[in-house]
């Protein structure tokens, strides 16, 4: 993965000094609350329900074992000994003290980490597929582009005060979209044109929140070298013309809708005509320099272990379940991709203790070249595990709580921190997730149900991505009481769709029953191997409505 050079280190060191000065001035009363707000937000610092919350950036989800160990130490020294993996592949601390934050940032900087632009109305962490670089079906590894975008967007002087936050995601797989690019402000799909040149299909104006939208394509093919000049044109048009009078209408999706995708694209093209030949146009050398950091690790020459694995799986049902669910195929013979699930029933999705962070670091060192990836589903990936070490790894992670074999099943729930932690939330989300996990504790039944995305958000801000869950749950507040609205049919894949609301909302205690009825309608109506989303698309929402509200 990317390693800082002297330029990156200098810029980060200067940033740490700057934020220390800003915090000092805020504590001394020289900056009003209002003036300090965007400064601390652009350093990932929220003031939450019980304490400040610090969101630490994990660029496109990648970390080294040393960084995990440092995070563990920070959670012990400055927090309550645990951290939370977010749906933007970042890490949050829930209890740091404001006056400690400059020291925390200094400690992070020592391991090339920071909290830059993890919040605020600026360009946020660029995200991508957690299987980048190791999966079979990708056009090219997207991570170098993410790093190039990270550098371009870091402290961009023109775009520090956009109308609203701005999120970019990149995907390079032809068949899957684990980065959910079509619900981002800008979604970039890596493609090759007929001439074999690399480039991007550009989606703009997708998003969740109050007005969920799938981002339309505004350019079918953007040559690779034009990436940054084009992004600059898009963001400049947004900065100038995006609405600033109403925070709920300030995202770029509203501008794209108002101008129409064609009208917006024309404005971008006109702006880009001035920029495309500028020195910001990428050079082959610049791309190659970054690509050189994302080369293959020192793989050993080993054969696929199909027979040996088949034997182990036959002999051990639990191992078989785990391999079937949590292990994915790797582009390299003899290797596999392992997802460590952070979704054991009874623990808030994405929460990890300091000890667990260190355990993950040890596992990375022992089994996967010292690197991990955080997923937007709040799990952790070991991307390069030798197949002949899978059994040993599995045995090691069972007592750690990372082997729950439920990846992509109904109980692999995406869930925001909700009303237990977040000041914005209308309702709790974690207890709902837990009650559903408890109801569906039979693995055979879960596997029979196959892939189902269940996403829960505690409010309209949609951090739990409920709109694109096959089943989405949204916490709503009705006269001071918490209720839950259910939507069906959402997807964040290449066929991205916003879910449809089923009907009136439900009380918290009814949620497991409601989910059970929905699942029941699916089971009764599915054909053969049909997945939940496909059955839903075939039969529509009415059969579900009839059953749930009967």
């Amino acid at each position, binding site marked *: 993965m990317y390693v800082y050079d002297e330029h990156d280190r200098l810029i980060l060191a*200067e940033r740490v000094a700057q934020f220390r000065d800003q915090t000092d001035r805020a504590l001394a009363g020289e900056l009003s609350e209002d003036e300090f707000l965007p*400064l601390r937000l652009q350093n990932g610092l929220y003031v939450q329900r019980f304490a400040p919350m610090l969101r630490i950036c994990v660029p496109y989800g990648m970390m080294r074992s040393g960084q995990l160990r440092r995070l563990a130490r920070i959670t012990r020294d400055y927090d309550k000994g645990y951290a939370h993996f977010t749906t933007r592949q970042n890490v949050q601390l829930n209890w740091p003290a404001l006056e400690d934050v400059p020291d925390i940032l200094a400690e992070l900087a020592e391991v090339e980490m920071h909290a830059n632009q993890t919040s605020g109305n600026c360009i946020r962490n660029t995200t991508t597929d957690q299987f980048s670089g190791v999966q079979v079906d990708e056009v090219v590894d997207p991570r170098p582009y993410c790093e*190039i975008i990270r550098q371009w967007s870091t402290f961009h*002087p023109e775009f*520090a005060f956009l109308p609203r936050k701005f999120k970019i995601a990149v995907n390079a797989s032809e068949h899957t979209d684990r980065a959910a690019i079509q619900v981002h402000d800008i979604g970039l799909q890596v493609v090759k044109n007929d001439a074999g040149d690399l480039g991007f299909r550009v989606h703009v104006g997708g998003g969740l929140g109050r007005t969920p939208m799938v981002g339309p394509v505004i350019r079918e093919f953007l040559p690779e070298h034009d990436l940054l000049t084009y992004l600059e044109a898009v963001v400049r048009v947004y900065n100038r013309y995006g609405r600033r009078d109403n925070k709920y209408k300030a995202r770029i999706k509203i501008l794209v809708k108002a101008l129409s995708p064609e009208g917006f694209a024309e404005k971008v093209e006109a702006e880009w005509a001035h920029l495309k030949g500028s020195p*910001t146009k990428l050079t082959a050398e610049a791309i190659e*320099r970054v690509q050189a950091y994302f080369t293959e690790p020192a793989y050993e020459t080993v054969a696929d272990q199909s027979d040996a694995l088949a034997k182990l799986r036959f002999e051990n049902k639990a191992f078989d379940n785990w391999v079937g669910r949590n292990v994915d195929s790797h582009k390299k013979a003899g290797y596999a991709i392992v997802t460590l699930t952070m979704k054991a029933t009874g623990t808030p999705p994405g929460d990890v203790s300091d000890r667990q962070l260190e355990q993950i670091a040890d596992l990375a060192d022992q089994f996967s070249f010292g690197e991990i990836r955080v997923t937007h589903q709040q799990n952790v990936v070991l991307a390069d595990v030798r197949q002949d070490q899978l059994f040993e790894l599995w045995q090691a992670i069972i007592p750690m709580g990372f082997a729950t074999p439920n990846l992509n099943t109904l109980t692999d729930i995406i869930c925001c921190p909700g009303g237990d932690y977040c000041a914005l939330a209308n309702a709790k989300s974690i207890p709902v997730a837990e009650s559903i996990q408890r109801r569906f504790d039979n693995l055979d039944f879960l596997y029979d149900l196959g892939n189902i995305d269940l996403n829960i958000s505690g409010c309209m801000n949609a951090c739990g991505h409920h709109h694109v869950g096959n089943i989405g749950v949204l916490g709503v507040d009705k006269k001071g009481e918490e209720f839950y609205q259910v939507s069906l049919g959402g997807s964040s894949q290449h066929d991205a769709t916003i879910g449809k609301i089923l009907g009136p909302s439900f009380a918290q205690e009814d949620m497991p029953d409601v989910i059970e009825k929905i699942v029941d309608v699916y089971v009764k109506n599915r054909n053969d191997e049909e997945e939940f989303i496909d059955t839903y698309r075939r039969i529509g929402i009415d059969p579900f409505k009839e059953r749930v509200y009967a």
Partner: protein
Amino acid sequence: MPDIISKDGSINADNWTVVARPAPGDSLDLPEGPVLIPMDLWIAGQEHFSGRTDVGVWLESHDEPEALDGLVNELPVIAVNFPKFSDGRGYSIGRLLRERFGYQNELRAIGDVLLDQLQFMKRCGFDAYALREDKDASKAAACLNFFSNSYQAATDTDVPLFRRRAS
């Protein structure tokens, strides 16, 4: 007389007056001394104002700098108003005036101008800053210079870091 901060952080006395837009029907009254008037009024009275070294313009953050294409260097000072420090449109206006329309003279930030935004203004082509009066001008130099390097090209440098790394 209020102070104006230059991009090197020095603090100088300033005698430019920002003239507010007259109410509809009222005429534009110019006070003594050099003045900054609303951009569209300068354009409307171009034959009268052009070439005068004591009349410049100011833009609101929603104004389109495109209106000054071809005229910029007839102006001794262009000011851009930041109605609220969190309104970032002025940064794009600054870059367009400098990089697209080739403006050479003083580009001034006015309005809700605070210390922590000076670095961005400088990179986007502003070289004079009318710091809000309650802010400590002696800290401007430090705030303008927190960073000695940057990743991207802007008005201050057209060479992004990736091109400097390569050489």
